[in-house]
């Protein structure tokens, strides 16, 4: 499924229509912010100011397209790869990096942002999304969820169990699978023999959608549709967004060991930002040529500003109190942890 091709030209589709111009512009703007964010975080990682960063450069359309389709009360269940999705969802960009900076595990209050912690154990977040939407429905709230996972993660038993629970309980979850062709060094054909990952939906009695993941308009349209269906009781769905991880798995990765640079070049030509910018220009979605330049420059400046703020705010060291290690293990600090806290305080005094 594709609505905008790599040259920015619209492609007709029988069941889906592209979002309206304002939304197309909004998608582009969010991708631009995401791209700059990825670059900034990558730089910080190279400088050692983040412990690690898993970049999603090249995947901005899949993340932004999925997240912008959420309604105000909906929840996001992201992975470590999805910082751009979090930013688009409204999470404070600096707080999406708390994990990678090593300050704490989750940098934000999940309730405040309707966003679960970035999940590292693969596919384990998917059943959380099922449970949360089940609970919300029971409480009479119209809450859907977007559960994100990679192509590799679909091989895990947890993915299977979550799909199945969602389908049997008919909970409003859309599973957004970013098929970026690689699970670290393992290519998709060593991960599955299925025609597409969207085909997995068949085995759960769900709908599966196979979408050009570098076409933000298509991802947005399909996820919106799937969310609306799910919300209306039509059942959960799998959306496979076919995209590509242009950067290494993380800054610690060595992609030259396992993939051909030509493959990366191939995908760079399909960059989601190129096509959305072309569409905007060709169709004049931001007005005439001059207005367009000005607006795009403003977006660029906004993206730069966000990236700059992130850099600056990360420069100030967060105050990390080692006593906080004991605070939130249990609802109240049990006696043994009180003792350990006292011992640690002694140790720290001695140093």
């Amino acid at each position, binding site marked *: 499924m594709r609505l905008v091709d790599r040259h920015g030209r619209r492609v007709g589709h029988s069941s889906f229509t592209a979002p309206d111009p304002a939304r197309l512009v909004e998608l582009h703007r969010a991708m631009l912010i995401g791209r700059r964010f990825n670059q900034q975080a990558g730089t910080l990682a190279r400088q050692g100011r983040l412990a690690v960063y898993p970049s999603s450069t090249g995947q901005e359309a899949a993340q932004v397209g999925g997240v912008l389709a959420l309604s105000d009360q909906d929840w996001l269940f992201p992975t470590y790869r999805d910082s751009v999705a979090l930013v688009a969802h409204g999470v404070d960009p600096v707080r999406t990096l708390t994990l990678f900076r090593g300050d704490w595990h989750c940098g934000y209050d999940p*309730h405040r942002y309707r966003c679960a912690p970035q999940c590292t154990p693969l596919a*384990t977040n998917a059943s959380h999304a099922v*449970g949360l939407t089940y609970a919300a429905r029971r409480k009479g709230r119209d809450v859907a969820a977007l559960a994100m996972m990679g192509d590799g993660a679909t091989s895990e038993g947890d993915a299977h*169990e979550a799909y199945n*629970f969602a389908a049997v309980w008919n909970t409003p979850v859309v599973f957004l699978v970013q098929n970026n062709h690689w699970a670290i060094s393992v290519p998709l054909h060593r991960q599955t023999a299925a025609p597409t990952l969207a085909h997995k939906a068949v085995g759960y009695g769900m709908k599966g959608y196979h979408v050009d993941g570098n076409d933000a308009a298509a991802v947005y349209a399909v996820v919106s549709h799937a969310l609306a269906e799910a919300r209306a009781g039509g059942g959960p769905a799998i959306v496979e967004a076919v995209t590509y991880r242009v950067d290494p798995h993380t800054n610690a990765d060595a992609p030259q060991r396992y993939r051909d640079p030509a493959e990366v070049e191939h995908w760079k030509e399909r960059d989601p930002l190129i096509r959305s910018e072309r569409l905007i220009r060709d169709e004049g979605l931001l007005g005439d040529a001059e207005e367009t330049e000005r607006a795009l420059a403003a977006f660029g400046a906004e993206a730069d500003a966000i990236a700059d703020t992130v850099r600056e705010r990360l420069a100030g060291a967060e105050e990390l109190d080692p006593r906080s290690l004991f605070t939130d*293990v*249990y*609802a109240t600090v049990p006696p043994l942890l009180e003792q350990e806290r006292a011992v640690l305080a002694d140790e720290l005094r001695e140093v």
Partner: protein
Amino acid sequence: MAAAPGVSMGEALNRALHDAIEQDPDVLVYGEDVGPLGGVFRITDGLIGEFGPERVFDSPLAEAGIVGTAIGMAMYGLRPVVEMQFDAFAYPAFEQVVSHLAKMRNRTRGAVALPVVLRVPYGGGIGGVEHHSDSSEAYYTHTPGLRVVTPGTPADAYSMLREAVECDDPVVFLEPKRRYWSRQEVDLPVRTEPMATPVVRRPGTDATLVTYGPMVETALEAAETAAAEGRSLEVVDVRQLAPLDDGVVTASVRRTGRAVVVHEASVFGGYGAELAARIGERCFHYLEAPVLRVGGLDVPYPPPKLEHHHLPDANRVLAAVDRLQWESEWTDDGEGRVRP
């Protein structure tokens, strides 16, 4: 058929679930076969009939999925009580338990509490075939963030399960399945001591038996026999295995000067190692004899016809008590061991 007197542990648990569901609209019970069947041990008997399938229901057959969805529900304010059908069938959920259930509060600096109760019928003694009799407590007690509790009496079963459901921490609620049919005279509802505190089940002066769950009865039986033979054993029921409040245990052993730790699990690396190590450290100057451990053999849980060799009974406990270097009877063999 006249009802047996008193309340069985199974009935107490059933009543606790009943009362919890009744009193808090956010409580719900699900798992494998907990609906119309009432669970393979009937602990959820009648609940779906009384509260309907919105509150009590059968889920697909997948333990990681059960725990994972319970985590998600708890994130949105429900208090799910989920059943793992048997100890060994909780292992598929191990990642969800260790990497999420135990850690979510800590990961989010307290923003997300997970008031989930994971009910696990555990241990042997019911003639079950393989994978139905594991004592898996040590896997959970070494996992910070989990409360691990196990009742030893029907009254505690009721009270601790109510407390577990009310608790804002995730609770691994280990039910000593062989004691489901043990009865006690008690009026429900009842509230016993807070689950975080060990209790002295029987006072004594000569040695302390430290135990929990299915072995509470066994230890009391041993103490009874010992009393007849003139030896006074104190029995401490740990109840909440983790996080442990070791004050009662320490005080008891300092008083008696001798301790035997008793559990059903294999001894090696079992929870009893923690108890013994801790007693050894905290009571060093009070100990008249080494802290001994009595437990299952260090072998995979045996088939039904051999399980009685594995399971500690009162005799095995008393044999350990006999080895506690009662001065008049024992001498050191020079090897750190003491023989009669």
